[in-house]
Structures are given as structure tokens and as C-alpha cells.
């Protein structure tokens, strides 16, 4: 018998005796008991296989060295040690370093006598191990869904989940650690009663950060180690509330094609692994890496082999695309069933506001401008249906503004929102029009972020030189991975080589370069219309045949306009600090970005202060790029910023 339940016998015997005296009831119960015992004995058949037999077959098949077994134990890539730090994850004392000991202990534990708490038995704690063994060993008889594993049964995802998705969450400038995006797993129940999947489970990988952690300590321990991390499961609505409705981040849902066996194995392993601890490293053992490692349990192809130096979330999705493409070419089968865009609440709101007619939008802005007291006066100008549209939009807008700002600090805005809420509740229900939001291509559909480039540069009238560039993360305005013309470039290094002078020099270095073009916003009152750019780096300035380096910290703000799907323009004024005179410079300039698919261009022109007496000089430049393949592009660049130069080069996306 799997569970001991003798302890309740004495305590409840009197009740049973009383019941047995009621003859009619007794007979019914007797037959029910016979039926129960029959069922019980049937379930006992799962122990038909014998331990020596199973151990012998496992050894003969060399299962201890099987890649799936090592993945179930989370061994590192050289298969020397498990990355799981929690002792209770291992059934053998040396299971962390010896997969064969762990396999033997796992099989032994299967046949071990049960304790009082069934949920603590190895069968309930490690169902994925036994599920996998049952598919490998003919002598091993394990049935999924041990009825005595009450907590596992209650969790029950292996019954309800129909498919598995990996979500790519867009980058977020509100937090440096979120700049490069996020990845998490979603377990889709595809319930007809929950079409948006709010109660689907998700799996997130995260570090345990102490409260009020010092920022420097946070950065140092994040990069060099010191934090413990682990997987946690939550309902999807909690992710939606944070990523989409609080941080206004778009999400791309990559639904995978998995067989029933693969899906079940993955789900059972999620049960095993949640709550266990790992070491956390921000650059390479982060959410995307650990998620890739987890999903690799059921995907044969290596998801981790394209990490160079670091493993940012988009790397995982590039790898999924690669595998999907390779599978289609070789066998005609997919890995990715679909890639679905989930717009942020901000994007939805902007599109909702664009649906307002001019008179509705006028009332909307008037109420925002004049305050809640003007609500009755302005609303009365409109018929009921229009009032509903305006109030729905006002409520969505005020909630958005409250989340974007600090609601605790603005009691008046909360009061404003509550008055709108009340006014709306007093009108009849009306469904917000179905808003069609254009799908934004996933960053993983474009080029990879790490770039190596070679170009020939002609500078002024001097001889030409060869320029080598490298950046671990480049989302350029003219690149295929740019989202709506935005730019985010980190550690962009350019080294020049003069052939005859036998000289190498740093030509340019940008630690960080950001261009944020706000083309989505609507002209709503008190909504920011600002676009902005930032650059921290240095330029080489050659004077009297000597190289000098000019450190630059530049910040600019302005406006951007999206004319159509091809053209975006902007006007921005930069204020920059330099280490070479003039130390403070102002640069008003205009830019145009053209997007013709594989062909993209950025042109800019303006003036820059050249002294403190009001003298300005012309500045102009641009970059035109043509994508040759997924991994390669040709480009030409020109500018007069520090010297008049023209270059022609090739970029490889690694």
C-alpha cells in the first residue's frame, strides 16, 4: 500500500460501528468497499516491475550518460556538475557530481516504502524522471498521474496544458537591467472560458535580491555572482499587469510545436525544478539562458550554442528561428507553430484615442485641460454614445497616467479618475470598439545584435584606412532589428589601421548610444510628445598629425513624426559636454529615416556651436545600408562631424 492511513483507524472506529448497525446503509457501503478495494488492487499493479531488473536494464542502456538524464539533473555544459544548488534536488549524496549514483538512487527511491506524507515520496517529487525512465526501460512500469500525489494532481498542468509558448518581452528603459528585454515561459491551457489566457501558468527565472539592495552592490553581484536564483510559476495575468500594463512593454508569443510526450515531460520537470536554487549571473546565466536550458530538455537541437560573451533574450528567439528554418528544410516540420504580437496597454490606448472623432477628441482634451469640474459642461455637448467613447478613453488615459507616474503622489489625479469612473458607471455598458493594432515585427525577425564590421574609410584628403568595428549589442536605426526607428547600441568600438604607417588606433568608441523616437503618441493634453537621444563615448580628432580623443556626453530632446510606413523624421536639439574645446556645444538638427525593407537609410543635417560667441558650423551625415542576407549587410557612411569622411563596408551579424 502506497500510503499508511492506519492512524485514523482508532480515532474513527466508533463512528464506523455505529454506521455498521444501520443494516441498509451497511449493505450499500459493503458493495462500495468491494469496488474500492478492486480499484485499489488494480493500482497496485504499477509495482509489477522489479528493482534489480530495472537497475540492470538502465545500466545496460547507459542511461546515466544519456543527454536527457543530464538535462533533467541540470548538469553544466561540460557534464561535470549539476548547476542546482539545493541539496534536496538530489536523492544520492553525490548526485550533484555523479549522474549514475543519482540514477541508481532515483530507481531505488521508486521502490522505497511510502511514508506518512505521500507528497514527499520520490514518485511525487520527481515525476519527470520516472516518466522519462518509463519511455526508456521496457522493465519499468510507471503511470503518469499517481493518484496519491495530491499536490501534483492538484497542480495538474500536465492534464490541462495544451501547448507551450516562450514570450519575448521588449526592452524597457525604465530600468537598466530591463533594457535588453526579458523571456519567460507560458503554458497555454487554451481554455474556451479564458480566451486571453489570463489564468494560464507562466514560468519565470529570477534572482533573489534583498530588499533595499545598494545599486553598486546589485550591479557587481549581478555581473560577477553572489545572488541565488530560481524558477517561479505565476498566472499570466500577473505578468500582463507588470509588463504590459505597468511598464508598457510589447510581447511576442512564440508558440512551440511539441509532441504530447515532449510537452508532458517538460511540464513534469517544471514541477521538479520550481523552487530549487541556482547561481545567478546577469550576462550569461540569466532568464533567457536558463529558460533555453530548460526547454532544451525537449528540443534536440542546442539552444545555447549561439551565446557569445552573453546570452540576451533575443538570442534565444534567433536560435528558435534558426531551428525552425532548419527543420522545415530538412523534414518539412516546424518548431514554431506561430509568433503572435501582444501590444502593450500604452499602444492599445494610443490606438483607442485615435478612434475618437474630432469633436470627441476636443471634449477629451478640454476635460483633461480644465479638470474634473468641467466634465458635465463638456460632456453635455455630446450625445450619449459619444459620451461613452469619451469617458472610456478618459478613464483608460487617466489610469495609464497614474501607472506611468506615481499614483501616491497625485491625489488629485486619482480623484479625477474616480469621478470619470463614476460618470461612466452611470451610463449603460458598451463594448470598446475592436481596435486593430498593426503587428510590430519581433526583434528576433531582424538581424542579430552582435555585429562585426570591416570598412574602408577615406578621411579628408588623407590616405584611406581600414576600419574594424565590433559591438556586442547593436540595434541601429538602419538595422533590420530596429523597432520603429529606435536605436540602442552598447559598447561600439571602431579601430582604424593605416597600412603604410603600420599604425592602429581607436577611431571611435560609444559606450552607449540611444535614439528614442516617439512616433506613436497622440496629441493628448499633458501626454509627453518628446523624443530623445543619448550618447556617451569618444571621438578621435586628428590635429597636426596627432591623435586626440574627445570624450562626449550628449543628450538631446525634440519631436518625431511618422509620415507613413517608410518615412520617419525628427528634429532634436543636442546639448553636449566635450573634453576638447568648446567644452559645451549645442546642436539643433533634423533627421530623416527611410525604410524600404532590406534597404534603410538615415540622413541628418544641422548646425553645431563652434565657439562661445555664437558661431555655428554645419554638421551633416548619414548611413545607408542594404541587407544582403540574414547575417550580412553592406553599408556606406558619410559625415563631416570631426573630419569629412566617407566609408564603404560590410557588417556581419554574429
Amino acid at each position: 500500500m502506497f500510503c499508511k492511513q492506519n492512524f485514523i483507524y482508532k480515532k474513527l472506529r466508533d463512528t464506523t460501528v455505529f454506521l455498521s448497525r444501520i443494516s441498509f446503509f451497511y449493505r450499500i457501503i459493503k458493495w462500495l468497499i468491494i469496488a474500492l478495494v478492486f480499484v485499489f488492487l488494480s493500482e497496485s499493479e504499477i509495482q509489477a516491475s522489479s528493482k534489480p531488473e530495472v537497475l540492470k536494464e538502465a545500466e545496460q542502456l547507459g542511461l546515466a550518460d544519456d543527454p536527457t538524464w543530464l538535462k533533467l539533473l541540470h548538469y553544466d555544459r561540460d557534464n561535470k556538475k549539476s548547476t542546482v544548488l539545493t541539496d534536496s534536488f538530489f536523492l544520492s549524496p553525490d548526485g550533484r557530481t555523479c549522474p549514475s549514483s543519482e540514477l541508481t538512487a532515483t530507481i531505488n527511491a521508486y521502490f522505497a516504502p511510502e511514508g506518512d506524507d505521500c507528497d514527499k515520496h520520490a514518485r511525487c517529487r520527481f515525476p519527470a524522471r520516472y516518466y522519462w525512465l518509463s519511455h526508456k526501460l521496457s522493465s519499468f512500469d510507471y503511470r503518469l498521474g499517481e493518484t496519491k500525489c495530491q499536490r501534483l494532481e492538484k497542480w495538474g498542468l500536465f492534464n490541462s496544458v495544451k501547448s507551450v509558448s516562450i514570450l519575448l518581452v521588449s526592452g524597457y528603459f525604465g530600468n537598466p537591467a530591463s533594457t535588453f528585454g526579458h523571456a519567460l515561459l507560458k503554458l497555454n491551457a487554451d481554455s474556451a472560458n479564458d480566451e486571453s489566457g489570463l489564468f494560464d501558468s507562466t514560468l519565470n527565472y529570477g534572482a533573489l535580491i534583498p530588499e533595499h539592495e545598494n545599486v553598486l552592490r546589485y550591479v557587481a553581484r549581478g555581473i560577477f555572482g553572489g545572488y541565488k536564483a530560481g524558477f517561479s510559476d505565476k498566472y499570466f495575468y500577473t505578468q500582463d499587469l507588470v509588463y504590459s500594463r505597468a511598464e508598457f512593454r510589447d510581447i511576442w508569443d512564440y508558440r512551440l510545436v511539441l509532441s504530447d510526450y515532449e510537452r508532458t515531460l517538460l511540464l513534469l520537470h517544471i514541477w521538479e525544478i520550481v523552487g530549487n536554487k541556482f547561481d545567478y549571473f546577469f550576462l550569461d546565466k540569466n532568464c533567457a539562458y536558463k529558460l533555453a536550458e530548460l526547454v532544451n530538455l525537449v528540443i534536440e537541437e542546442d539552444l545555447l550554442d549561439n551565446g557569445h560573451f552573453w546570452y540576451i533574450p533575443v538570442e534565444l528567439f534567433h536560435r528558435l528561428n534558426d531551428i525552425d528554418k532548419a527543420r522545415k528544410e530538412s523534414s518539412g516540420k516546424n518548431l514554431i507553430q506561430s509568433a503572435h504580437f501582444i501590444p502593450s496597454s500604452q499602444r492599445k490606448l494610443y490606438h483607442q484615442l485615435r478612434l475618437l472623432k474630432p469633436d470627441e477628441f476636443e471634449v477629451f482634451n478640454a476635460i483633461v485641460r480644465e479638470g474634473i469640474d468641467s466634465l458635465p459642461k463638456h460632456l453635455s455637448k455630446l450625445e450619449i454614445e459619444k459620451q461613452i467613447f469619451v469617458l472610456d478613453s478618459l478613464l483608460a488615459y487617466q489610469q495609464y497616467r497614474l501607472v506611468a507616474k506615481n499614483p501616491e503622489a497625485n491625489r488629485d489625479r486619482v480623484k479625477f479618475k474616480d469621478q470619470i469612473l463614476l460618470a461612466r458607471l452611470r451610463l449603460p455598458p458598451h463594448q470598446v470598439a475592436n481596435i486593430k493594432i498593426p503587428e510590430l515585427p519581433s526583434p528576433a525577425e531582424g538581424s542579430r545584435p552582435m555585429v562585426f564590421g570591416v570598412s574602408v574609410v577615406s578621411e579628408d584628403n588623407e590616405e584611406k584606412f581600414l576600419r574594424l568595428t565590433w559591438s556586442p549589442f547593436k540595434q541601429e536605426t538602419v538595422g533590420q532589428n530596429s523597432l520603429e526607428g529606435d536605436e540602442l547600441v552598447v559598447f561600439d568600438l571602431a579601430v582604424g589601421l593605416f597600412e603604410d604607417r603600420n599604425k592602429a588606433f581607436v577611431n571611435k568608441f560609444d559606450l552607449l548610444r540611444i535614439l528614442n523616437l516617439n512616433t506613436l503618441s497622440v496629441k493628448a493634453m499633458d501626454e509627453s510628445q518628446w523624443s530623445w537621444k543619448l550618447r556617451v563615448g569618444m571621438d578621435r580628432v586628428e590635429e597636426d598629425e596627432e591623435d586626440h580623443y574627445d570624450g562626449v556626453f550628449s543628450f538631446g530632446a525634440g519631436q518625431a513624426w511618422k509620415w507613413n510606413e517608410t518615412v520617419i523624421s525628427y528634429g532634436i536639439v543636442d546639448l553636449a559636454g566635450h573634453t576638447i574645446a568648446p567644452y559645451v556645444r549645442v546642436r539643433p538638427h533634423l533627421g530623416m529615416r527611410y525604410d524600404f525593407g532590406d534597404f534603410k537609410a538615415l540622413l541628418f543635417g544641422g548646425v553645431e556651436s563652434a565657439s562661445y560667441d555664437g558661431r555655428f558650423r554645419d554638421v551633416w551625415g548619414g548611413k545607408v545600408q542594404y541587407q544582403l542576407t540574414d547575417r550580412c549587410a553592406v553599408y556606406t557612411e558619410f559625415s563631416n562631424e570631426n573630419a569629412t569622411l566617407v566609408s564603404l563596408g560590410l557588417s556581419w551579424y554574429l
Partner: protein
Amino acid sequence: MNKMLFVICVVLFVFGIFAQPCMARDFADIYTDCGLGAMIAPKNSAVAAVTNVTWDLGTTAISSNISSPDSCTGGKDRVAAFIYQSYDSLEKDLASGYGTYLDAFVELVGSDPQYKQEFIATLRKDFAENVAASMYTNRTRYQKAEALFDLVYKRVGSVS
């Protein structure tokens, strides 16, 4: 042995019929027992209601449904957590009478689908009375969530 097994099965059967699935708990109990009150962050209450840390690249605090106490995964507990965490979204959907959060909410509280619109209409009316109260703006998230929780369980039986 057979007799002992027989007795055990009788008892299990009787308890299976007569035992209540769980004791009714109010919002305050669930809030305390299930750790909703621990989810506090200084800057943004909407985020705080969901998680206390939102760092990316895998630096989100660990909090798991698997590791939640068994007493916190039942129907009313899920409703309480959902109301508390997604109050703003529910508020917006209740205002218009439509929305994904409201749909999920109606399903969660177990309202009969046949009477869904009737349930929402009643809830909207009651909720409007709550919002009309002079102190509504000054109420904490906890107080607002508790009031909606009570409204729902006052109405869910009468309509469904």
C-alpha cells in the same frame, strides 16, 4: 487486516460525502494567510500588487503558485488575489461592462454563463454605489479590493 481496511474505507467514504470542502474565509483572512499584504513596493502600487521586484534578465523575485500554501489556491483565494492584484484593470472593465479581465473574473467567481450580463449589470450598479461614496478616493487598495470582494460574494449567489 481486511476488517481494518474495511473500516478505513467506510470512514473515508462518509467523510467524502459529508465533509465541507473548505471553511469559508473572508478577504482579510486570505490577505493575511496568502501573503498578499507582503507584496508592497514603495513606488508603484499597481506593480506592487503583483510583485515587489521587477528587474529583468531574470531578476524577478521568486514567488510560486507551486510553493503557495495549499490553503491559498482555492476558489475564493484566487478571486481575492485576482481582485487585489488587478483592481485597476477590473475597475476599467466594470466601467464599460466589457473586457478580458471582467470576463476572466466572471468565470472565476463561478457565475452562471447564462446570466453573465445580468450578473455584470448588478455588479456595476453596486460598484457604482461604492465609487459614489465620498471616501472612495481615500480608500487603500486593500479596502477597495475588500469591498469589491464582498460585493461579488453578496451577488454571486443571488444571480447564478
